[in-house]
């Protein structure tokens, strides 16, 4: 069936084709555009394995025909809420991309196509993009349910699409509202940060059992009690609607479907004009806010190293999206903080090891930004500045903020347990320096915006980084354990030896393979 050129259906087909090209077709610029058969085969194998797993899960949890155990409804609701948060996160990123990054909007808006059609198709493409990954991973449950005589599991399809439509509509409305309130330039940053936070919220929620443990109760026990009692909420409560819809309750699924259609329709009707306005604002938003021109003030006369460090810090501090990506790693401090307020003997061990791992991860990110994402490498290389001075300054720019950030927690740890604090300071310095060196020797250059994707296509660096983190993490745990306790055994000593060998050996290996990696 061929759609009439210029119709919304025709445009949707174009969007689907573009989505197909960008996800499954060959990404190499040299290869002719076409199916990436190896990737497709890999996905098919993975999907088959998922079906096998789903067959097992459905057989275990599915009750008799028409039966819907309350605990299963609760689990499905929790799964759907978590999925919705992730969907919201992806939808925010996609909305920003649709509004700011796609290069074809000028062409579409200058065509005779109504802006309503363009907007509805773009929103539909966001919905499909957001839903696709969840359908890929969860659809095997529906298929397994159907094959095992539970066709109600097929409700997973409309419910996931409905949730994706609600999440995408909310994300698009939020993005357009932000454009109106903050302007296009700030919206881009705020929406990206909100998107990342929505995803990170799940991590914080997953740490709630730790909070429960502070009250003396085992977290798992509390969860199970809540789970068995349906969290104390009545079984007929509308709060369980998503779970019931996912498990095939026709009324609940219909309510989700109607809500999704309403959200989509209202978003298109109410905002397709502001969509076009948002695009116009985005087009004119490249300029930074003008400040009244005062007297020119310069800070000349600094040496090469100071000049470079100042430049690197300025560039990072002026890029809120970059900061948010780096600082999201601090989220892992939350469970660590919970441990800090816990009063038992394992506290210094866990805090030291946690801080060490955090510093390794932060140093690696910052080192990649300053060393691999240099915007004007030709300027540096065409200058008479010594390359070793440049590298040293850049390493300092990467490691300095990390060490400054953990200074207070390490001082606190040293005050509580002096030996553990000193050992933590040693492992923190070691991992920060080593991580930065690994990036310098094996990292691949890229643009700053590619920070989150920097590991792609660089398996050697990823392997080096992970084993390096594990080595120093092991040392950070075992050294104070052996130094403080009387339980030091041959096993602990061997563990320290192995962890030390990895911690110091991996940077050496990275240096050996540095030319091959670049």
């Amino acid at each position: 069936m061929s759609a009439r050129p210029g119709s919304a259906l025709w445009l949707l087909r174009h969007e689907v084709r573009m989505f197909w090209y960008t996800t499954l077709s060959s990404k190499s610029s040299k290869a002719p555009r076409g199916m990436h058969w190896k990737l497709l085969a890999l996905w098919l194998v993975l999907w088959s394995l998922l079906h096998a797993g789903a067959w097992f899960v459905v057989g275990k949890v599915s009750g008799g025909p028409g039966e819907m155990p309350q605990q299963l409804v609760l689990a499905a609701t929790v799964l759907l809420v978590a999925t919705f948060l992730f969907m919201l996160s992806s939808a925010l990123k996609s909305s920003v991309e649709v509004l700011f990054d796609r290069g074809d909007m000028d062409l579409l808006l200058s065509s005779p196509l109504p802006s309503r059609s363009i907007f509805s198709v773009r929103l539909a493409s966001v919905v499909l993009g957001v839903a696709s990954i969840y359908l890929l991973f969860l659809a095997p449950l529906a298929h397994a349910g159907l094959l095992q005589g539970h066709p109600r599991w097929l409700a997973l399809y409309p419910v996931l699409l409905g949730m994706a439509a609600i999440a995408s509509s909310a994300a698009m409305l939020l993005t357009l509202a932000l454009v109106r309130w903050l302007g296009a330039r700030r919206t881009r940053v705020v929406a990206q940060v909100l998107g990342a936070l929505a995803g990170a919220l799940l991590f914080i929620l997953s740490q709630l059992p730790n909070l429960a443990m502070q009250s003396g109760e085992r977290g798992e026990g509390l969860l199970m009690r809540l789970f068995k009692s349906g969290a104390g909420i009545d079984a007929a409560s509308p709060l369980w609607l998503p779970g019931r819809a996912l498990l095939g309750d026709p009324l609940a699924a219909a309510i989700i479907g109607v809500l999704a259609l309403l959200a989509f329709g209202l978003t298109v009707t109410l905002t397709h004009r502001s969509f076009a306005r948002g695009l116009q604002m985005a087009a004119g938003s490249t300029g930074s806010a003008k400040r009244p021109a005062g007297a020119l003030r310069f800070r000349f006369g600094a040496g090469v190293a100071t000049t470079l460090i100042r430049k690197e810090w300025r560039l990072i501090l002026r890029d809120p999206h970059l900061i948010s990506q780096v600082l999201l790693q601090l989220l892992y401090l939350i469970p660590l903080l919970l441990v800090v307020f816990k009063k038992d003997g394992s506290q210094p061990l866990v805090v030291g090891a946690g801080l060490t791992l955090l510093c390794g991860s932060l140093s690696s990110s910052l080192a990649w930004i300053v060393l691999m994402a240099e915007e004007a490498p030709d300027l540096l290389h065409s200058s008479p500045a010594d390359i070793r001075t440049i590298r040293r300054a850049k390493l300092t720019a990467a490691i300095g903020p990390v060490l400054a950030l953990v200074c207070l927690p390490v001082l606190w740890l040293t005050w509580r347990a002096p030996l553990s604090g000193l050992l933590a300071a040693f492992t923190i310095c070691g991992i920060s320096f080593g991580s930065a060196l690994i990036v310098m020797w094996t990292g691949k250059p890229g643009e700053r915006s590619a920070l989150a994707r920097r590991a792609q296509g660089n398996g050697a660096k990823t392997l080096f980084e992970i084993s390096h983190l594990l080595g120093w993490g092991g040392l950070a745990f075992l050294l104070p354990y052996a130094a403080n306790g009387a339980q030091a055994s041959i096993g602990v000593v061997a563990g320290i030896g192995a962890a030390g060998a990895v911690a110091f050996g991996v940077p050496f290996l990275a240096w050996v393979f540095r030319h091959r990696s670049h």
Partner: protein
Amino acid sequence: MNMVSPSLLVSGLRKQFARPAVDGLDLNVARGELYALLGPNGAGKTTTLRMVAGLLAPDAGRIEVNGVDLARDPAGAKRSMAYLPDDPLLYGKLKPTEYLEFVAGLWGVDAATAEPRARQLLDWLDLSKHAHELTEGFSRGMKQKLALAGALIHEPQLLILDEPLTGLDAGASRQVKDLLLSHVAKGGTVILTTHILEVAERLAQRIGIIQHGRLIAEGTLDQLRHQTDAETLEDMFLQLTSQA
């Protein structure tokens, strides 16, 4: 020795990628000269300039900048030159003042020399009123002018420019041309590539035409005219490159 040496001396320069990009190139550009290196796309102009700027190691040949061998003393050779590619070497999140501070820091220019120079350059290039804005919002012309200011902040003797006027409007183009002529008038040397033959015709004292990595013709406009039976540089260029 350095006082009489040419600003740029290139001999037997070679560089091969999949095919020879530069194939035994010789150049001799005197101090105080504005030299235009012309050639069709892929002729080896940018590769030559990148080797001269120390960004690309030659497979063979020798490069001397103001009498300093680039291979033996790269820092010494780079100290007296500046390179400006067609895509300006800028940082989007820096302001013009900060960018100039950074470049001056790289070249080790002291504050007493750099500050008046920076003010003068920003004024000349009409950038003073934008000095508090981030460069990511600048137009192509403003970016090119700021990059040129950066190239001139350390007062290089030799200025190497790859397509410096591409994408500039008439006003910005005039400002850049005036600045280049002023640099040459003060004894500086400029080597530039351009596809705008009119620019080479009006500005350059000597013109070199390069094809397949080799210099196929070189001289003043009159000398080139004698080598061909053409009147305009465009006709000369087309005739010479079609023969080679």
